[in-house]
């Protein structure tokens, strides 16, 4: 049996884990194609016009898989942390796809709910495994294997390799690096090269080393976000705020690029928090890139070049600036 995994949302974060799990249960895993114009067009046609681009793309990627697989895997992710939610659209996406009137293979949507249950992850995988096998030992073995796969994937990320290099066989140059920039955004925005307009590649060509959340220890990031007087109730929000604070406080980067999808609910507020709490008070260089299906690559290149030039000049005269932290 072939199971299709759309290359959207948490794909760049959990694909190796899901792949290992399914393969251990004897399934063949087929990821959807890398986002292209055709996928974007079908997405825009079939989806809710008000959703953010990453959610819209789920429609296109599912349709891309339609002919190739027997089942489609769209987990219903309620929470990745105890007492913390995902964006409502992550909770509702299987329902949205199922009721969109697309003629597609059956959808498998296990609930991954770490918000209410500390054991949410293993519960979700058990529910998932039950679709294919009755044997609990088989599921547990597959789960252990999948955790191993995830761990080795995360270790490689922490060495500074981007998910694109691991999963999509891209190559980025390692020499001639003059600046470090932290890209603060969700993995499905930064690493989907259509959504981000190939931002990582452009920055790399400009001689910038990109740091992203994936390259830092998750727990450390979340610890940074705990300084907020009211705990954020979105895991993603905590991640973004924590990443920005981590990078700025430890002086790891020369500047920050925030990537925000048009219409993203949590980010509309998180951006405001980051700007008002972290970057504005100390004049830390920051640029926000808002993306939607109409964004053009040229506009992006212009802005990134300007930002990088500005940082380079600033670095040159850094000795003239007072240190702020």
């Amino acid at each position: 049996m072939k199971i299709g995994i759309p290359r959207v949302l948490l794909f760049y974060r959990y694909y190796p884990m899901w792949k290992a799990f399914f393969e251990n249960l004897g399934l063949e895993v087929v990821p959807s194609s890398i986002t292209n114009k055709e996928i974007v067009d079908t997405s825009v046609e079939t989806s809710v016009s008000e959703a953010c681009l990453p959610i819209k793309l789920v429609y296109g990627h599912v349709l891309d898989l339609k002919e190739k697989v027997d089942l489609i895997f769209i987990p219903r992710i309620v929470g990745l942390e105890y007492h913390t939610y995902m964006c409502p659209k992550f909770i509702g996406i299987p329902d949205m796809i199922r009721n969109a009137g697309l003629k597609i293979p059956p959808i498998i949507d296990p609930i991954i709910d770490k918000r209410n249950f500390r054991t949410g992850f293993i519960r979700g995988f058990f529910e998932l495994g039950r679709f294919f096998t009755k044997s609990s030992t088989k599921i547990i073995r597959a789960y252990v294997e999948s955790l191993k796969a995830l761990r080795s994937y995360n270790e490689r990320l922490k060495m500074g390799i981007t998910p694109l290099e691991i999963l999509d066989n891209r190559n980025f140059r390692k020499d001639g690096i003059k600046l470090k920039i932290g890209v603060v955004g969700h993995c499905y925005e930064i690493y989907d090269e259509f959504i981000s307009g190939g931002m990582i590649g452009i920055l790399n060509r400009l001689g910038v080393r990109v740091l992203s959340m994936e390259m830092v220890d998750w727990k450390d990031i979340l610890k940074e976000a705990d300084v907020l007087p009211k705990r954020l109730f979105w895991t993603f929000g905590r991640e973004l705020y924590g990443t920005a604070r981590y990078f700025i406080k430890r002086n790891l980067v020369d500047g920050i690029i925030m990537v925000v999808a048009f219409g993203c609910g949590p980010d509309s507020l998180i951006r405001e928090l980051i700007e008002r709490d972290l970057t504005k008070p100390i004049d830390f260089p920051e640029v926000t890139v808002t993306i939607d299906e109409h964004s053009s690559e040229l506009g992006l290149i212009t802005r990134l070049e300007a930002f990088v030039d500005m940082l380079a000049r600033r670095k040159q005269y850094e000795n003239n600036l007072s240190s702020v932290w």
Partner: protein
Amino acid sequence: MKITYPPFGDARIAIESMLRGLGHTIVPPPPSTNKTLSIGVKYAPEFACLPLKITLGNYIEAIEEGADTILMLGGIGPCRFGYYAEVQRRILKDLGYNVDWIILDLSNGWGNLLKSIKRLVGRNSPIRVIRVLQLAWEKVLAIDEIEKLSRRARPFERYKGEVDKIVQETHKRLDQAESISQIKQVLVEYREEIDSIIHKNDLEDLVKIGIVGEFYVVLDHFTNFEIAKRLGDLGVLAENAFYIEEIVRIYFPLFRSGDIDRRTRVALPYIKRSVGGEGQRTIAHTIEFAEKGFDGVIHLLPFTCMPEVVAEGVLERVSRDYNIPVLTLSIDEQTGLAGINTRIEAFVDMLKTKKSRRKVV
């Protein structure tokens, strides 16, 4: 301490009654206008949802009038509403307004919630507090009844604005009522006046439209362009899926009833798990209206509202399955009155034609 609050719709009567009863000086925010909206839009994050912008405008207008404390609710997500207070607090601070916040929020633990409640209650005795809450609750129920009846009467108005006049009078008297029996008296008189307008025999022939969606937009008359009034003027019986009572029941566990969960259950085949806000309930209410024989449903949401976007994605299917037309109106600061009017009128025309054809057959 001069206290102000985020107003929505007619709920202000009940909120003011409660605050006044607890002995606070209140500075009610001036009624929302386009000016309120433009103040809010100017300072709020660009992509935040509309209620955040309007309430921010309300606060600033109230502060200009002398308020120094803001009463607000918090939340535990996943809807953005739960973080409103935090963001608005920062914005007001950066603008240089020095205000105190009383945030009723459970996410920082019971201790903090109790502290906020204590500030609100002050030195009132528990019995007094219970009486005040009781009175406010009765006012909520009265406001809802006034609203419900006014919607039945509006299609039969003898002259334009007749019902509005009665409602405004009644609201004023309700505002002054200081005991439950007085509220009852106000309602009795109101019912009499309204009943004389309604033609009971023709009620069944009216086109009936249900209104579902996100609570602030559904209940706040300014935000939804007084959609109920507009529909009434077009000769349509417009009914809300919920009124203020249900919102209070949802947000305050003290008043919670199992009824809400029971009502939501019909949505399970479409949205299996709550997606926060009103997302799942929107589906349930739409199904409910279809089963009650309504002719159409209008779905209201603030632009980019996350739970409602999920609902919107599913509504098309519900509309087809239950054979009920749905018009989705997503509202933000760019929405124009003319656009809303045109769409409502077209929708009502379509429903009227459909209804009259059915009758002929």
